[in-house]
């Protein structure tokens, strides 16, 4: 267990260092997200009240789409430079590779949220700063990254790569999408108060189920 955690820590350090050096992923995700916000503004000409209601939806959709840019690049180094084999010889268990990638992807999503939310607030004059809202976004990012990391580890080994990721991933994300948007709407006070415990439970169950399943099946993805 200690060895497993240690290897996860080292792998996350390596991924963050790679990203810090190249800054490929976060810059394109951020640019994509901000541009999407602009597009939404013109596509949905809304009154301030309606806009306030759909704010969580817009934020989450923007994150989901921008997130695919990051997910697509998750495993390219491992695939193209043969690093999978190098890691497989060193880690105590292959699930450590998956978990480290999940954490890296999640951190990138959270980083994206931290940048996008203030920009949204600025552009639309609506304060979205609310710890509970951020917490739920975090849980959503976890579920998104859990499913996304597993799927991208497969698509990176196919012919179609980037083209295939959204097609495979989006149908699986429906529970996360619903739970995040519905509960955030209530938390931001833009939707009439409902009990969001059901949504939060669902989100937690989804995160746990997908993460556990992925940890179990990951070795079949990368081991011939």
């Amino acid at each position, binding site marked *: 267990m200690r060895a497993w955690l240690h290897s996860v820590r080292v792998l996350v350090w390596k991924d963050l260092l790679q990203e810090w050096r190249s800054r490929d992923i976060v810059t394109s995700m951020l640019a994509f997200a901000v541009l999407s916000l602009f597009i939404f503004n013109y596509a949905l000409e809304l009154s301030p009240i309606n806009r306030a209601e759909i704010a969580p939806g817009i934020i989450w959709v923007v994150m989901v789409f921008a997130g695919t840019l990051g997910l697509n690049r998750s495993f390219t180094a491992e695939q193209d430079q043969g690093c999978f084999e190098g890691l497989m010889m060193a880690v105590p268990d292959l699930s450590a590779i998956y978990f480290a990638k999940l954490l890296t992807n999640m951190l990138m999503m959270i980083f994206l949220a931290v940048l996008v939310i203030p920009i949204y607030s600025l552009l639309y004059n609506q304060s979205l700063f609310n710890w509970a809202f951020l917490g739920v976004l975090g849980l959503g990012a976890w579920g998104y990254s859990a499913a996304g990391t597993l*799927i991208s580890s*497969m698509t990176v080994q*196919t012919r179609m790569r980037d083209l295939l990721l959204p097609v495979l991933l989006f149908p699986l994300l*429906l529970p996360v999408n619903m739970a995040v948007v519905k509960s955030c709407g209530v938390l931001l006070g833009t939707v009439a108060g409902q009990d969001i415990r*059901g949504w939060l439970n669902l989100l937690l169950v989804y995160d746990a189920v997908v993460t556990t399943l992925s940890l179990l*099946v990951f070795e*079949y*993805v990368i081991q011939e």
Partner: protein
Amino acid sequence: MSYKNKLLPLLSGFAFLLVLFAFIRMLFFTPVEQTMGLVQKVFYFHMSAAWVGMLAFLASAVFGLLYLSRKDLKWDTLTAASVEVGLLFTVICIISGMIWARPIWNTWWTWDPRLTTVTIMAFTYIAFMLLRRGVDNPIRRARFSAIYAIVGFLSVPLTFFSARLLRTIHPVVFGGGETDMNLNPQMLVTLFISLGAFTVLYVALLLHRARLMAQQEELNQLQAAADGSYDWGA
């Protein structure tokens, strides 16, 4: 891989007869529903198709698990065949649902949660087929298909519970709620006969499709071995 060639035609014949029997019973020997009228009869095949769609996806997840543990490609063939057949029945379910909905709800489509869920489920399995097309190496294709079938299937109850949390206008057949559909015993019997008939039909179609897939793959391999063109990416 060989399926017993004698049993399969028998099974197919039996399936055909059962479905015909269910159809005739549904048309002529089942009372017409009070509020919805004649169009309600679509319901028996609609629900049976939905049931088979679910069953097929459960089966594909089980076959996927069996492949991962046994590594025998016949399980992979069954996984893929089950998904295809399941997709067919899910599309039948959606279309028959639309036929039923138009006179009753006065619209072809609503964003009713159950409809949305079933459609997303269909998309999951279209995605599965795209995944298979994108991988050339048969062993890798088998592994990825198994994993996606399992993950895809597990997302179905989660999606269903998401939908349940939202209010639904979809009639709930078993399980209470305002929009209950009341079925008298005769209707229930017809329903169960339809469900049974469709299940047998599913098994027959599954075996046919699997057999065809297996033969096609064997042919591909022999052809490639003959002209040395198989890329295993190894």
